[in-house]
Each structure stands twice: as C-alpha cells, then as structure tokens.
C-alpha cells in the first residue's frame, strides 16, 4: 500500500513537472514561433514526399503551372499527385503568415498597441498580395 502510494506521488510529480515545462514552452513567444515555423516546413515536406510517392505509383506527368486553390480540393480527393505537390507548396507559403498572426495575438495579449498595429499592417499586406491579381 505504501509503495503504491509513493509510486502514485512520483507519477503525480512527474506530470506536474511536465505541465510546467509545457507551459513555459508555450508562454515564450520565441519558442512558439520556432515550433510553428518548424511544424510548417516539416508538414510541407511530408506532404510533398507523399506527392512524389503518388507520382511514382500513378505515373502521372508532372504539371508545370501552379494549380488554382479552387481546383485543389477535388484533386486531393482523387489522389492526384499534382494536388498534393501544390498543397505542400501552399502550406509552406502560408507558414510565415501564420507566424505573423501568432505574433499579433501575442501582442494583443500583452496590450502592446503599436506592435498590434504594425503586425496588422504586415498581415494586411500579405492578404492584399493574395488578392491583388487573383
């Protein structure tokens, strides 16, 4: 009984320590940005590799033009390799946008008004570049 109880306490302490570490990790904006950028690239590379596996399996010829996002969803459902290659590329392009959005939220929470404004301008520039010629 004693052994079980002390064992339980050790597990509880471990969990508490782990939670503190996670909170510390998330609280730090630098760490958060690092993780989001890393995750974006790794996800993008994984999808691209999957796309190339599909190219090998289906023997589809590769496209030489970017695929409009509207046509993308259909291609993902039919497992067309060019759809997955384009998705991987798009995820990579959107990663820095996600980073700016994250900084914006962090500065809103810190009530840093001038940097909320600056990151909103950068975000507005990025969004306008999405639509300027579309």
């Amino acid at each position, binding site marked *: 009984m004693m052994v079980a109880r002390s064992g339980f306490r050790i597990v509880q302490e471990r969990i508490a320590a782990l939670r503190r570490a996670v909170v510390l990790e998330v609280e730090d*904006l*630098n*760490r958060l*940005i*690092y993780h989001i*950028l*890393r995750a*974006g*690239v790794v996800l*993008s*590379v994984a999808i*691209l*590799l999957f*796309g*190339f596996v599909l190219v090998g399996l289906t023997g589809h010829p*590769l*496209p*030489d*033009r*970017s*695929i409009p996002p509207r046509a993308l969803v259909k291609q993902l459902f039919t497992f067309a390799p*060019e759809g997955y*290659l*384009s998705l*991987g*590329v*798009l995820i*990579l*392009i*959107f*990663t*820095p*946008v996600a*980073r*700016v959005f994250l*900084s914006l939220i962090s500065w809103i929470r810190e009530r840093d008004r*001038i*940097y909320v404004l*600056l*990151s909103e*301008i*950068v975000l507005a*520039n*990025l969004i*306008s*570049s*999405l639509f*300027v*010629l*579309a």
Partner: protein
Amino acid sequence: MSIAVLLILAVVAFLAGLGGSYLGVGGGVFLIPFMTLALGVQIKVAIATSLIGVIATSSGAASVYVRDHLTNLRLAMFLEVATTLGAITGALVALSVPGEDLYVVFGIVVLYAAVTMLRVRETARQRAYQAGDESPLTKYLNLSSVYFDQEDQGVYRYRVGRPLAGFGISAAAGVFSGLLGVGGGFIKVPAMNVLMRVPMKAAVATSNFMIGVTAAASAFIYYSQGLVDPGLAAMVIIGVFTGTNLGTRLLSHAKASNVRFVFSIFLAALGTAMIARLFFPGVLP
C-alpha cells in the same frame, strides 16, 4: 521536366541550402542562375521557385535563431512593414517587364552579393554596447535588445540606430526580393550592421527571419499567375530543407573564411554569365 532533371535540382537546392545557411547568403543567388543557365527554366518561373526556397530557408533554418533569442522580433516586425510592401511592388514590376531585363538586373545584384560576402568578421569590441543617444522612434518602438553570443559566451546589449533609414533600405530589399526571387540578406544585413548598429549575428538572424514573410508576399502574386511549377518547387523545398538542417549543424564548428572566398568567386562568375548571356545571344541557354 523529367524526373532526372528534378533530382539534379534537388541536389543543387541541397547545396544552395547548405551554402546559404553556412555563409549567411540565401539560396536564391545560387538557384536562379542554375535553373536558368543550366536547366533552361524560364526566368520568371525560376524566380517563383526560388522564392519558395527562400521561405523554406527562413522557416527551416532561421527558426533556430528565434529559439535561441538571436532574432530581434520587434525590429523584424517593424521592418517587415517595409519589406512586404516592397516585395509586392517588386513582384508586380517583375511580371510587367520582359525577362531579359531581369537577367541583367539579377547579374548586377549577384555581383554585388559576391562583394558583400567577403566582409570580415566582427570582433567583440565591435559587438560591445555603444553609448549614445537613442532616437525617439527607437525608444517609442522599444527596438533595442540583448542577445547571447554562443561563441564567446557573452551577453551583448545593443541600441538600434537610424530606424527610418533602415526602414527605407528594407523597402528596397523587399523590392529586390519580389523582383528577383532572392532573400535580400546581402542588402539588409550590412544595413542593419553598419547603419543601425545591430551586432552581426543578431542582424543575420533578424534578416533571415524577415525573408520568409517578405518572400510569402510576392510568392502569392507569382502563384496566382500560375508561375509556380509544383514539381520544381517541391524539389527545391526538400533540397533546401535538408541542406539548411545540415548547414546549421556544421556552422557551430567550422572556419568559414576560405569557403566564403571560394563561393564569392563562384558567385562573381555566375553574375558575369547572367550579364554575358545578353551580349552573346545563343552561346548560353
């Protein structure tokens, strides 16, 4: 594009990522001459592909500097207002001018990059805090910062000087990024280091951080025009990603000065070839 050509491109992107993260010059200045001169890729497609590579470099390798608190996040956000506007302008200009003009401008810019690569390393004395008046804008934006230098285990506090001049130069760097598909680090890093008095390592880290958002702004425009070739872009992402991962690991224990010199000569040759292509049509692809 055949699979063999794509694999060669992946290897070159790997080398560009390796050299880029190792030497602080982004992959674009190597990738675009290779794609246009050796693979015969149309220059605007090459620029779009290179922009994707720039984003991969920024998100993959430069994020490590963010984790290590080398990057000045406030300074980056302030200057990104300028670089994103510049990048949109640059991309719109690139789409409206003939490709031949872009070759020449690119050649000149690459030659300039070759020269800036030869810059010397800074000493601890140069890194040290320089007293002086902080401009009102720097104070208002709270731009000054500290960073920890792993090399000599020192903490360096620095004041950011001339924020408006830096803002202007960043806008110009953004234009070049959108126009030519390069990161523009060879413009921003000297400007931040000399003009704004940001220590070299913090300047490199902040510049590498900014190029991702800058390139994304113009990449959207190139993408909407159908200029992003998914196969080429995919190979460049995979190559650059693996290359930069290795490069950042090598960086910690290696002497870069000799490699830097060789790469600089190589860049100068590439720039000359890009310009020469115009005067001797038919000799080069």
